């Protein structure tokens, strides 16, 4: 192989791949399956919220002011955070992929910048409110649970918070990296245009 035309010839002489049989109907089924899975996920999350609210009334949490605030803030934060994630998934899935690569990349950068606000502004506020709600419930746990289980709740809550923070940080680094790469690429494209 010496010049570009030879390379092109080599490229075009690659063994031709045949379209998989029933490939189109497999794709359509897969899309339907994905949509069903999403609906199941939304249903599960909805059911979990209903159970939590049910639990709230079951334990008469509304009779105690602090317990009401605590439990209600935790439920609310969970619903808001899960809602934000579902919105993100939906937004990315419905983003028009048939646009030019330049506009598509710009849209992706815009999407990840919105995610950056979610990570750096909204999530810390949500974690703070969630922790506040949890701390409001602690006195009730102390009264209602055995000393051992109370200790377990204290320790596990810190561990969960640390593990969660680690995964959120990892995801943030990954997404920031994507923004950086795409911005470099867009700069490169602008140079081409200019």
């Amino acid at each position, binding site marked *: 192989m010496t010049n570009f035309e030879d390379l092109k010839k080599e490229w075009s002489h690659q063994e031709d791949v045949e379209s998989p049989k029933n*490939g189109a109907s497999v794709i359509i089924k897969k899309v339907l399956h994905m949509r069903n899975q999403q609906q199941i996920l939304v249903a599960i999350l909805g059911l979990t919220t209903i159970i939590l609210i049910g639990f709230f009334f079951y334990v008469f949490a509304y009779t105690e002011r602090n317990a009401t605030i605590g439990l209600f803030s935790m439920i609310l934060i969970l619903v808001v955070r899960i809602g934000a994630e579902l919105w993100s998934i939906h937004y990315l899935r419905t983003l028009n992929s048939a646009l030019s690569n330049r506009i598509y990349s710009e849209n992706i950068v815009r999407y990840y910048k919105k995610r950056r606000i979610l990570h750096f502004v909204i999530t810390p506020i949500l974690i703070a409110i969630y922790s506040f709600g949890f701390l409001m419930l602690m006195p009730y746990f102390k009264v209602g649970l055995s000393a051992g289980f109370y200790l377990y709740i204290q320790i596990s809550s810190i561990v969960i918070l640390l593990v969660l923070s680690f995964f959120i940080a990892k995801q943030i680094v990954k997404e920031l990296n994507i923004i950086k790469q795409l911005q470099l690429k867009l700069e490169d*494209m602008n140079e081409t245009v200019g």
Partner: protein
Amino acid sequence: MNDPKLFFDQIYRDNYPKVFRLCLGYVGGDDMAAKELSQEVFIKVWEHLERFRKEAQISTWIYRITVNTSLMYLRKESRKKEIPLQEWDQVEEESSATVRKESQMKQLYECINKLPETHRTILLLELEDVPQKEIAEIIGISHSALRVRIHRIKNELTKCVKNDKF
């Protein structure tokens, strides 16, 4: 064609080979990854089919989806862009003509993967013999800007393949 399923089936059969080949270029010749990626591309094609306007050429429209999906796919999983060594080892056991051809392709894939992202896309479409005007449209730059760059990209690739020659 009024039935979207029939229309999609037609699009799938007509375009699968070239989509697969383009995907293969993005994933460094990894067959399994290219199949997975092609499937993702056609999922997008099906999901976007209602938005397709007849004024654009269907091939350009599919290439745009392929390029955008491929680039996101590579980012999402930080996939290895090189061909797994095991796969190329198997090639060694085949006939010498096949080995030579396969090793040439390996070189080509490796050199393509060394190129910056936009250059890689331009080059893969050029190798697929897509008209330059269409490539410019897919990338989103002017035809003249593409013409300026394409010569340099071709040279970069040829130089890389020559240098890597066994």
